[in-house]
């Protein structure tokens, strides 16, 4: 109950932040160089057709009216039409979103599956050989740009050995998973490194905490201490870290989708920027802000449920 009221309060806090994002994006996009009407009409543009296009897009009205109209429509999920793809932005985003969500979800699962055991191995051998190697690997992972990891995987496993496709996505769910394995590995690497490094720190702290020493002292088996007391704390830290790094993950998804030519929202973002498609960039940024806020909210609520010490 407590967690729920807390969640409701946080949900309300999202609103001003998202409006602020909308203001920022609206202002930024109006500063963009170039006239989208001209870009759209190309060589056949006449003064009359440009004026008609401006009217259709609402560019002939005052900036305040334009912004108010924008907010009013955005609140109802209507972000206008993409001028290059001739589709409502909302629908375009909905079409492209599932691939990105799938990619991100696969990356998170991969990262957690890799990071938790490695962090345990490092923390239990603090200062030892395994710890040193794992720490070096995480340092390396943190220093590798996403696009470079993607290219290495492409060069070796896709172009070189031919085990995986070079890019794109499949025709059905299972094929999609196969196509997304390399991109998900790419996206997961830096997250794994971040998780591993921080989880190791917090595990060492927990292992040295008094309640763990107490559990050991009262004669609990090592496996029980690790499984019940330490793992629970480790999972809470992992959750917190995942929440904190969701922004990095989304940024990474933008680049990963570009490298692997995946038709998700990241790729859409880059394409729209180069095509000067105002509406899409605006809509995407707002949708991303809402999604990230919801993830923060979910993490907060889960934390309050899992960890009695967190006072929601």
């Amino acid at each position, binding site marked *: 109950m407590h967690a729920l009221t807390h969640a409701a309060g946080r949900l309300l806090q999202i609103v001003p932040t998202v409006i602020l994002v909308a203001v920022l994006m609206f202002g930024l996009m109006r500063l963009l160089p170039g006239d989208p009407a001209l870009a759209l009409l190309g060589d056949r543009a006449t003064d009359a057709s440009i004026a008609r296009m401006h009217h259709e897009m609402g560019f002939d009205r005052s900036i305040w009216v334009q912004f108010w109209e924008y907010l009013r429509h955005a609140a109802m999920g209507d972000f206008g039409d993409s001028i290059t793809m001739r589709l409502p932005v909302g629908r375009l985003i909905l079409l492209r979103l599932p691939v990105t969500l799938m990619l991100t979800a696969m990356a998170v699962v991969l990262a957690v599956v890799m990071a938790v055991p490695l962090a345990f191995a490092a923390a239990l051998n603090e200062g*030892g050989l395994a710890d040193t190697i794992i720490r070096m690997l995480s340092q390396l992972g943190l220093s590798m740009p996403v696009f470079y990891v993607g290219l290495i995987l492409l060069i070796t496993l896709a172009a070189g050995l031919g085990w995986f496709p070079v890019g794109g996505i499949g025709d059905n769910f299972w094929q999609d998973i196969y196509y997304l394995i390399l991109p998900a590995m790419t996206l997961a690497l830096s997250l794994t490194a971040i998780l591993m490094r921080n989880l190791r720190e917090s595990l060492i702290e927990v292992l040295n905490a008094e309640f763990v020493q107490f559990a050991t002292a009262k004669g609990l088996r090592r496996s029980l201490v690790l499984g019940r007391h330490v793992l629970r704390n480790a999972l809470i830290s992992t959750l917190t870290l995942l929440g904190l790094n969701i922004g990095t993950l989304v940024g990474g998804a933008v680049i990963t989708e570009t490298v692997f030519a995946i038709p998700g929202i990241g790729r859409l973002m*880059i394409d729209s920027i180069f095509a000067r498609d105002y509406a899409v960039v605006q809509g995407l940024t707002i949708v991303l802000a809402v999604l990230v806020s919801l993830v923060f909210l979910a993490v907060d609520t889960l934390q309050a449920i899992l960890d009695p010490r967190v006072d929601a």
Partner: protein
Amino acid sequence: MSQAVATGDLAPSPAARPRRRFRVRAAPTLGVLILALLLVCAIVPQWVAPYAPLKFDYRATLRPPSAAHWFGTDNFGRDLLSRVIWATRIDMQIALFSTLFPVVFGTFVGCLIGYFGGIADVLFRRLVDLVITVPFLVLVIAIVAVLGPGLTNMYIAVSSVGWIFYARLIRAEILTQKRRDYAAAGRVMGYGWPRIVFRHLLPNAITPVLTYWMTDMALAILLGSSLGYLGLGAQPPTAEWGVLIADGKNFMSTAWWMSIFPGIAIVLAGVGFSLLGDAVASLFRRR
């Protein structure tokens, strides 16, 4: 004091200690060596690079690594090692110029907000909400898109958002420092706020900023090369590591070296700055 003794008891077993002491010394040395190498490449590339970075040689295009061309050649027959070395100058510049304004301005603003609080603090926290809600890369890409691709615009974009992270760090530190007795003593002595904030509080609050700065330079190189790769940062034919990797992408299956070697340079720089950051952190911890 009793706190310190209690944690002392829980320190790693004696067996782990010698190794740890070794690591503390070896890692910073490695970091300094890496950065020294990169700085030499950045300052005097003409002494280090074996060829001119922009010299075409159509008789030797897409050659794999050999004694004459250690990193191979690209599709115009340009020596890749020389291009990677010349690119160091651009990427080191990215590390410095992307972070300089954020460090100075962010620290300054963070001090004032932390010390005075009030309405500025409320507004600032809204701003922090904003930048953690929109992914940094997305925000920077959007701003660069507006200003137009290129290095200068990239610096403007990164700086206009980056200072917030520094301000947040220093604000939190100042908040705790200003409640200390020495700050109160300063006020009792009748010192003006600039003297209290910048001569007394700031030196005690600056450590996390300096540590973060080192990490941030590594992040700046990652971001700068990512934008270069996307075509939004440094523009060809300027040699920049991300741009070089992007050039190589089209020759992925025939000339792997074109992408692989510039990437190694990025990783090297990242590791160098991180090791230095750890060293700075432990230096301050020991005091």
